[in-house]
């Protein structure tokens, strides 16, 4: 295998720009997705069946269809509906946020429901309101259990952001494909892209494992 370092050097600035955009897209997706996911998760847990139904539909739709389809639909149909034009970056952020929100909602729900009922009863019997009990007793315990699956979701999200290359958002994978298209070489662009994705996901899992250790009680 011969690696042509010269073309890698030529594309290095583009890979750098692409990496920054990939990080930006992923961060935006994670942040918006987490906030949306929290509300959707709480919404789905509501006792009133009519109120919780739309949240269930949302989760079913976004979890049950491929992200590839979602990004195409959002890019070519949804974004032009609002702005009159397409915008690859906006479409990518929107898709990543909406898609991860569906998964994160379920992670929140699972985390909260995994806490024993007695915890809520004990908190209430101490005189706390339902909100107080949630905030000071249930959520802190639930959050600890949610970190591993959340980390999982974030890592998936970083990798899925590569789909944005299909709607010409100039992120990491887009430049990898552009380089491949220009020189008709496979190893240089794709191994470089793979390594950068690996570095990104490794750093994220490092941060998450630090967080997990800090929150560990034993």
């Amino acid at each position, binding site marked *: 295998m011969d690696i042509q370092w010269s073309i890698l050097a030529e594309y290095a600035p583009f890979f750098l720009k692409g990496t920054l955009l990939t990080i930006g897209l992923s961060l935006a997706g994670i942040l918006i997705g987490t906030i949306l996911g929290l509300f959707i998760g709480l919404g789905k847990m509501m006792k009133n069946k009519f109120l919780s139904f739309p949240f269930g539909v949302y989760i079913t739709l976004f979890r049950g269809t491929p992200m590839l389809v979602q990004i195409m639909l959002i890019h070519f149909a949804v974004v032009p509906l609002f702005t009159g034009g*397409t915008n*690859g970056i906006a479409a990518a952020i929107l898709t990543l946020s909406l898609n991860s929100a569906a998964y994160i909602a379920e992670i929140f729900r699972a985390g909260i429901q995994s806490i024993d009922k007695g915890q809520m009863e004990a908190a209430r019997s101490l005189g706390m309101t339902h909100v107080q009990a949630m905030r000071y007793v249930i959520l802190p315990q639930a959050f600890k259990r949610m970190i591993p699956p959340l980390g999982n979701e974030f890592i998936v999200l970083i990798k899925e952001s590569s789909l944005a290359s299909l709607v010409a958002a100039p992120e990491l994978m887009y430049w990898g494909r*552009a380089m491949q298209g220009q020189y008709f070489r496979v190893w240089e662009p794709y191994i470089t892209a793979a390594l950068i994705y690996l570095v990104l996901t490794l750093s994220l899992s490092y941060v998450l494992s630090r967080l997990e250790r800090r929150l560990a009680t034993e």
Partner: protein
Amino acid sequence: MKKFKLLTTFLVMAFMLMLTACGSSETSGNGDGSDKEKKTLRVVTDAAYAPFEYQDKGEIVGFDIDLIKAVAKEAGYEIDIAHTGWDPIFVELEKKIADIGISSITINDDRKKTYDFSVPYFLSTNKIMVPEGSDIKSAEDLKDKTVAVQNATTGQEAVEGLLGKNSSQIKKFENNNLAILELKAGGADAVVADNTVIEEYAKNNPNDKFVIIEDKDAFAQEFYGLMFSKGSKIKADFDKALNEVFDNGTYAEIYKEWFKVDPDVQLLKDQQ
């Protein structure tokens, strides 16, 4: 610890088994490719380029497909056509997994460094597609506009020649259909692609109101060729067969069937 060792041994063995399995299938494939006299050639194409090659209810059809069938018959080979997408064509031929690529592939010097080409079989130029009423009248007008192209095509090269390599005004898509969708959705001001494809699109979708602009000064004449691996042994057979197909009228027949006009066979033969 012992358990761990056992597991590792098992894993290593399973892995080696997988490797040998892959290896053996690969060698048998290669053996097929070079030893036997009469063999089935693997033809790869990107069947998303109507009317040259596209899928009609799962069946790969088009001008290129009819042509390669006629030429292969003339040359005395069996062929097996596979839709791989655009980029994999180049990889498969380089790695000699496939024998022939036919996918409206323009013959150019860059590609000739890595691949062999047959004699030219089709003349094409890049043209510009814009919405009706656009102020783009020539390639010169593209300079401050956003242009959608198919990644790794001569259309992309032509636009990069005008706007600069990797310019942020160029949006590169997986195929021309996505580039045209982008134009339709307002994300680009123009699409630059091979004339036949965008003319066909404009003709089939009159409601989209697209106009095709020709700019002979900015975009050079291009010729399509069959693409082979470097040093391919079958190239000579196919060159001969292509010329026979030109001479006996089969080419004109297929051309007329797909494009409704007569081809300029002499022009193609002059290029040889």
